[in-house]
């Protein structure tokens, strides 16, 4: 076992997959010589050479498009978006070409698009995006969002080995703040499988990404009042572990969905609808969502903190559900 940060887990996943499979390559802005804006790919160019680590112009459409073309030919590209916010520039290519390639014409397009997402780092409106909902409604893409170093490594490996396109959302706030003992040997975290992070019987918090730690804090606080919270870390947004969600709600009868992206039209809306549709008889309270305000993520710390979910709001929502 080795102590590994979340960002190192991502780097190791890339290195190990590039060693394992010569078809895997990395393409993006500043990923080679500079080692990535966050140093996520430090040393990878030296190890694998410029044929497999490509420094591109500022061209997200070309990065994702070229990666898609290469994937059609059997390569396994990892396309980095320097900030996941810039994936929006490549949105057309991803949802119209990459996502549909298999369904429309039977041509598998196995690429991974990965990049740092999320707020809490004073990045402002264009460096804080949580993009999962933008892609959830465009069939043909898989979307994962690990919150732990273990899951980051295992899910990135799974994404690289997946025969279909995967958007790998890594949370920049967690890069160097999370450190875990990781197995030295090869392991995969299957896409579509949630992790029951904490077992409980009074309330289910369904969450992912950096919000799992906020859920932890809230659960600890509520435990002092004798409330037992179950935390479902989805890890995969699409496909998602519907069974784990429904099983949890059947047990606790109260469900909260906690995500960092804004409320309206966020991924939580899908999970809430699914619970209402399939677990209605088990519910003792409405399904509640705690999410960011419906605004672009502001820069100034008091504004950003107010926009994003915090412990106060999670606890207030939990208590509302418990008192219903």
């Amino acid at each position, binding site marked *: 076992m080795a102590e590994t940060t979340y960002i190192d887990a991502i780097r190791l996943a890339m290195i190990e997959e590039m060693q394992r499979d010569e078809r895997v*390559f990395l393409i993006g802005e500043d990923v080679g010589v500079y080692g990535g804006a966050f140093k996520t790919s430090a040393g990878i160019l030296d190890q694998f050479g410029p*044929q*497999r680590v*490509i420094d*591109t*112009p500022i*061209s*997200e*459409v*070309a*990065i*994702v*498009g*070229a*990666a*898609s*073309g*290469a*994937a*059609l*030919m*059997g*390569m396994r*590209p990892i396309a980095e978006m320097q900030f996941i916010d810039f994936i929006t520039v490549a949105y*057309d*290519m991803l949802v*119209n*070409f990459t996502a*549909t390639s*298999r*369904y*429309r*014409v*039977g*041509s*598998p397009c196995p690429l991974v698009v990965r990049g740092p997402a999320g707020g809490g780092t004073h990045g402002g409106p264009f460096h804080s995006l949580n993009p999962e909902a933008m892609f959830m409604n465009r*069939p*043909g893409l*898989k979307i994962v969002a690990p919150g732990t170093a273990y899951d980051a490594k295992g899910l990135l490996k799974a994404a690289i080995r*997946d*025969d*279909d396109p995967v958007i790998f959302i890594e949370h920049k706030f967690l890069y160097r703040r999370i450190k875990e003992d990781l197995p030295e040997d090869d392991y995969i975290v299957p896409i579509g499988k949630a992790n029951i992070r904490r077992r409980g019987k009074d309330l289910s918090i369904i969450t992912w990404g950096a919000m799992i730690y906020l859920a932890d804090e809230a659960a600890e606080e509520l435990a002092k009042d004798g409330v037992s919270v179950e935390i479902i870390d989805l890890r995969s947004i699409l496909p998602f572990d519907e069974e784990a969600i429904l099983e949890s709600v059947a047990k606790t009868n109260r469900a909260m969905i906690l995500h960092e992206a804004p409320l309206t039209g966020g991924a939580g809306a899908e999970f809430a609808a699914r619970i209402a549709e399939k677990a209605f008889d088990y519910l003792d309270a409405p399904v509640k969502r705690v999410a960011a305000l419906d605004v672009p993520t502001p820069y100034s710390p008091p504004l950003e903190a107010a926009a994003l979910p915090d412990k106060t709001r999670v606890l207030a929502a939990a208590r509302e559900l418990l008192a219903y």
Partner: protein
Amino acid sequence: MTTEVLTTSNTHGLSKDELLEIDYYLRLTRTLEERLVALFRQAKVIGGLFRSLGQEGESVAAAYALDYAQGDVVQPLIRNMGSILVAGAKPSDIIKQYMAKADSPTRGRELNIHFGHPERDGFIGQISQLGDMIPVMAGITLAGRMQQKNLVGLAFIGDGGSSTGAFYEGMNFATVQKLPLVVIIENNGYAYSTPTYKQTAAKTLADKAHAFGCASEIVDGNDVLAVYGATKRAVERARAGEGVTLIEVQTFRLKGHAEHDNQAYVPPEVIEEWKAKDPLPRYERVLMELGHATQEDFARIQERVKAEVDAATDEAERSPMPRPEEASMGLFAGDGYWEEKR
């Protein structure tokens, strides 16, 4: 007033058989499209129908300059049916595509010539967001280089399509990476109803090459041998590692954007002027002048073409429509949908 139209007669090392084969593809393209129009009028072809009337020359000639045995890949747009016929696409597959049949190459999921896999077929279907295929073709040629194949890519884009950001990003990326990619801008004067002077202030579309730093050429798009020669030069440059060439072929769409469009926005005298420059009769005239072909040769080719198009139509008409329960299949790997025989 008739204008003397100069047509080049350099055959660029093509054999007589090859010259006649080009004529076969020209006639096949035109005849197949005429058949699709007939089927469209019988409501057997559904959705839109986009002819390449007047532009068959550049589609066929350019695609003929590739070497498919080396893994070369051509990427057509909707008006480049001739190019995929050269690459080996089957007329029956094309008709099945248009008729939305269950055993079309896309099993009814995609329309017109949006089909093809680069490795398996030597051609790849486009998507409708114009310009997107340029980065994709850059990626295909990038993979070819990584896999140590000596393949060259040939991408088509329109005068309108060359205004998109995706076009610029793809061209820039391909050029700076020195990828083996030939890009043909088909300047046919109109993007749907929009004339080129509203599309760009650039003097010529080939001038865009200066922005990328790649080689460029301008060719009479209705001179089959000239287009073949220019493309061949560009393909050879690409294969020798000299990178991207942007070729502007000047041509014209003798019909509207699609069957429903009567081209009322084009002055009728312009259409007449371009009818006189039709690539097919010009090419056949040159072949006859060079002594490589006779009217009997062309008649025989047309007979063969008609027989093939008839057979393809019969086959397509006999195919069933897709089953509704298939609509949810084949999105991801694992259900074996695409591994099933069509």
